[in-house]
């Protein structure tokens, strides 16, 4: 078959979450008030979850259809409107056409599966986690809307529609980070995320512009080969010009800036750790598994353009590598369990970019997939820990939990081995694949490979540290006191914790105290994700790489190759992970009671600790530069330009032309005089400029 079977169902993938959004937006709150808290919440949460899983089901149908397709391309064009099989025009304006259409190919359907599959699990988890929240309906409204926009982003058949999804997920992320807006810190974090993302969006918007300028269309591929990626593969730009490396450089760098914003690459990474202020399911879904990988997805989609320019590839690889090690060092020093995972996410995203930069987009996407499994798991596990400890997020007040919350502990253990890169768990295969290709990068390969290995060791170290502080060391909290005090936030104000997940689960079982295991709705997703973290890597082993083979039609061919053999790579990777774990073991096993390596005094005096602990001062620098200075500049500008310069200019003019000044001083209205004179100045300037330019053209 060359046609995609049941193409008319593609619209359902996006349609179902949208339906969920609309339903909850209009009736969610009503249902909860009418049906009562317990039943109503079950209906709302259940429906939201069911719709996402239904969307997953449809994605599976399309996926199997895609597998059955013959031919080289495995590409189909469908509509985003349910039950239509042909895309309808979205914008059709004098020569510019963009469809409201879906591009169904391995890349988009893979992302659909991840977004709806993991998204569904996280929705399920959230029904338990958010059970006591007063804004339950609002939460699921935003979550379903997020799923919708994310699916639009990955399914869009043109880059403009992708941009709509891109902005949409940004908006949802903003709304969800600030979900508990009663806490100013949360809303500030939301604001920071939005603003930093806007910086990236400039790059993206300019990139779209550049694509249009060079190719004359914004559609990725078309059936008759007229999309701009078709053209890029054929080496042709618009109007018969060649698609050169320079064009690829301009477009590639601009799009990369956009990708950096969304995927939190240095120096635009600053928003992601703060984004942990949102509820934990949000951190897992948006800020670990799906949205933050949008940058990688976008670069992969654009791979026919990116691979054309070696400079872009190198920039992507270097920024990715730097981000990976940079964020890993910060993760070593954090005490908030979610912050550690956040910096770990930034670091892992750096790996994915490194993969893309090596030209191995398939390996990058493989890491996107496995990372979605284990990082979602780790976040949800962390949420379960926080839940068990009544909203304690500071690892210094944890410890000894391995016996108290067994299921959470065992699943977290699976996530830990996966992220550390121990064979044969999921993270090992994808990380190894990326590092192998990175070693093959022209002339810098071995250096990059070495840094990558160090990062892997650091990763193993900070994750083991997290496990030690949380599960293995001695208990460092008073169990009887848990749940006895009011809101969790009050005990750790001094620690600058942003994300007090306090408001949600807290009131669920207000009278129970002590450590408690989470309800089944939270544990089931944990177990499933743990299973995926254990075996998920086998879809892409070097022996039978189903994964990369499947993705091949979506990705441009590049010169990427392994710089080390599989066995060497696997051995070195495992050794790096083992060193990290062993180091953590030897250091922390001795300090079982405190769980601290350094005393406070040692920390204060040690620059090597202080610098990463202060996030390498990047955040503070930005804050000083943009928030304090920027705000002042805007106010000053208003004062200076509108009140002083124009007034001043006017006064100067008035001083020179004594006649006017005398005339207008008598008009005691003051301001009108100034305005009129500024207008007059404008008139004189405009007329002089026109005459001057006319004189020049006439002189020719």
């Amino acid at each position: 078959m060359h046609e995609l079977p049941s193409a008319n169902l593609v619209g359902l993938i996006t349609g179902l979450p949208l339906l969920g959004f609309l339903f909850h937006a209009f009736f969610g709150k009503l249902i909860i008030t009418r049906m009562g808290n317990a039943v109503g919440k079950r209906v709302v949460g259940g429906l939201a979850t069911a719709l996402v899983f239904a969307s997953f089901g449809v994605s599976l149908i399309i996926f199997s259809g895609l597998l059955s397709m013959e031919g080289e391309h495995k590409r189909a064009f469908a509509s985003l409107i349910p039950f239509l099989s042909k895309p309808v025009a979205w914008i059709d304006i004098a020569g510019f056409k963009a469809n409201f259409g879906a591009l169904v190919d391995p890349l988009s359907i893979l992302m659909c599966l991840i977004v709806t599959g993991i998204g569904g699990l996280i929705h399920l988890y959230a029904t338990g986690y958010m059970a006591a929240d007063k804004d339950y309906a609002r939460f699921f409204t935003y979550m379903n809307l997020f799923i919708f926009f994310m699916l639009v982003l990955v399914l869009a058949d043109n880059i403009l529609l992708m941009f709509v999804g891109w902005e949409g997920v940004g908006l949802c992320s903003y709304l969800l980070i600030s979900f508990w807006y009663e806490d100013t810190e949360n809303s500030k974090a939301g604001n920071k995320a939005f603003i930093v993302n806007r910086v990236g969006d400039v790059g993206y918007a300019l990139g779209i512009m550049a694509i249009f300028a060079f190719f004359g269309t914004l559609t990725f591929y078309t059936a008759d080969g007229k999309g701009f990626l078709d053209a890029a593969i054929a080496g042709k730009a618009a109007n018969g010009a060649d698609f050169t490396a320079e064009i690829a450089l301009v477009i590639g760098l601009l799009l990369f800036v956009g990708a950096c914003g969304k995927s939190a690459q240095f120096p635009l990474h600053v928003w992601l750790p703060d984004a942990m202020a949102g509820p934990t399911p949000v951190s897992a879904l948006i800020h670990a598994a799906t949205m933050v990988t949008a940058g990688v997805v976008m670069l992969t989609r654009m791979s026919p353009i990116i691979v054309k320019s070696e400079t872009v590839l190198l920039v992507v690889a270097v920024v990715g590598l730097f981000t990976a090690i940079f964020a890993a060092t910060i993760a070593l020093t954090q005490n908030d369990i979610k912050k550690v995972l956040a910096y770990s996410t930034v670091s892992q995203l750096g790996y994915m970019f490194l993969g893309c930069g090596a030209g191995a987009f398939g390996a990058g996407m493989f890491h996107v997939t496995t990372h979605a499994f284990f990082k979602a798991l780790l976040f949800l596990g962390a949420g379960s820990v926080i839940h068990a400890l009544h909203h304690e997020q500071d690892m210094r007040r944890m410890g000894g939990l391995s016996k108290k919350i067994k299921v959470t502990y065992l699943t977290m253990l699976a996530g830990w081995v996966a992220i550390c890169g121990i064979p044969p768990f999921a993270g090992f295969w994808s990380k190894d694949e990326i590092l192998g290709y990175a070693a093959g990068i022209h002339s810098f390969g071995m250096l990059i490979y070495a840094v990558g290995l160090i990062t892997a060791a650091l990763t193993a170290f900070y994750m083991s540290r997290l496990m030690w502080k949380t599960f293995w060391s001695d208990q460092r909290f008073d169990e009887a006191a848990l749940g006895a005090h009011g809101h969790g936030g009050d005990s750790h104000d001094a620690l600058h914790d942003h994300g007090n997940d306090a408001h949600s689960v807290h009131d669920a079982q207000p009278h129970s105290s002590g450590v408690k295991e989470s309800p089944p709705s939270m544990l089931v997703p944990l177990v499933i994700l743990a299973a995926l973290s254990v075996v998920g890597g086998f879809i892409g082993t070097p022996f039978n790489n189903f994964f990369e083979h499947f993705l091949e039609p979506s990705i441009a061919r590049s010169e990427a190759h392994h710089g080390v053999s599989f066995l060497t790579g696997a051995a070195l990777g495992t050794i790096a992970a083992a060193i990290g774990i062993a180091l953590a073991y030897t250091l922390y096993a001795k300090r079982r009671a405190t769980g601290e390596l350094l005393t406070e005094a040692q920390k204060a005096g040690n620059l090597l600790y202080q610098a990463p602990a202060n996030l390498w001062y990047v955040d503070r620098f930005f804050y000083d530069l943009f928030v304090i200075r920027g705000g002042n500049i805007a106010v000053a500008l208003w004062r200076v330009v509108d009140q002083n310069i124009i007034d001043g200019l006017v006064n100067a003019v008035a001083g020179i032309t004594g006649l006017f000044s005398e005339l207008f001083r008598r008009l005691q209205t003051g301001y009108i005089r100034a305005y009129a004179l500024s207008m007059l100045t404008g008139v004189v300037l405009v007329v002089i400029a026109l005459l001057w330019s006319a004189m020049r053209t006439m002189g020719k």
Partner: protein
Amino acid sequence: MPGSPTIWDDLTLILPLIVLWITSFVLLLGDVVVWKKNRDLNPILAIVGTLIALGIAVYQTISLTGDKAFARSLNMDALAQVSMIALLVTGLLAILLAWTYLKNRGLERGEYYPLMLLSVSGAALMGAANDLIVLFIGLEILSFALYVMAGFSRSDIRSEEASIKYFLLGAFASAFLLYGIALVYGATQTTQLSELASRVHSAQTPMLVAGIGLLIVGLGFKAAVIPFHQWTPDVYEGAPTSVTAYMAGAAKIAAFVAMLRVFDSLAPVSSVWLGAIQALAVLTMVFGNLLAIAQTNVKRMLAYSSIAHAGYLMVAIATLAHRLDGPRGAQAGELAMTGSLFYLFAYTFMTLGAFGVLIYLSNRGKDYQQIEDLRGLVRHDPRTAYAMLFFMLSLGGIPPTMGFMGKWQIFYAALSGGEIMLAIVMALTSVMAAFYYLKIVYVMCFEEPREAAPAPAQFSFGASLSVLLSAAATILFGIMPGLLYTLTGLVR
């Protein structure tokens, strides 16, 4: 002569305007002579009149009956008719807003609606002018009504100040426009725009050039282009909010449709004026947005935002300069025309919507003007807050709203016409704009209200309906721009 247009044909073409005029006189006299006490009758009749005019205008637009009229002094083409529809829609939304606002303020004096309808007719005349003199008359009809309306709240000294400022500066600008018309006439011996197009190329004298410069100034003042913008914040802030809302939409539509007409005719000498328009566009975009950031008053912020939007529209005017440079330029010119009209529709919906929210809230007996006043709005009035959120996103040009679609079309036109630099400035300043629109969203959604929740706004039919219609349009045409494009696309 059989077949040649009679006076009746001409009158039929301006039937919507005649309906507006009759309605305004019926209202003016009816209010003082017939129904002195029934205050609700004024807005209802005004709405009825506007709806009839709108119906006729839509019918005429769809049936494509446009033609030149009144000895070629009016050009009732698609541009005139579509802009008339935009103006009538603006008028309709503004009447609904005024209904609530005037009642709250005890300002229900009968002359408000006639003044507004007359100013709509003036604005529509500007959009239909094929003669610079008619354009000038239209501008004056629009302006005089606006001067009076700006000072409508006679007990409020700021309203008075706004009115007198607007009047004096407006008169100043009108003088420049008139002088510009005189100079253009001097150079080409005609004031008819269609004649002008064929004559300007051979009449490139300093007189013509200076005339064009003064036309830019006169129209730039109405459109609030920097450096002719300084009246805008003061007048927007001082005038009654219902007037500000109306003025923001109608004056912008009229000024830019007139500019589209004038510079379309002047395209043969585009080398003369393109540089100035580009410079003004950049100035307006950059400083309009920068100055908006520092504002703490919503009306003032929206005033600077209106300046910034004028800058984006100036990009379309600059693109029009390439209309005669080959097929790609011609396409860019068409896109600039259709794009600006789409943008003007979008602007009027989102701006009237935003002001409408302020008016709706002032129903609580407190005047909502400061950004501070909106603190924590989502807590006690979520629906209104979400409507405002949508208008802010749309004004900021964030998809999937109408503002994004409008901006995209102008952006696309600029790219097709080769105005790359302007397109880049537009993209960068749009990002800047997100900051101050976002500030409102931030204050509304993520800050705690400072005082206890005020009494919920009383339901008021006018403002609610107006905000609802604006919000619906902003979303609908943002997701399906094609619906509106069938209308704006007629303008080629």
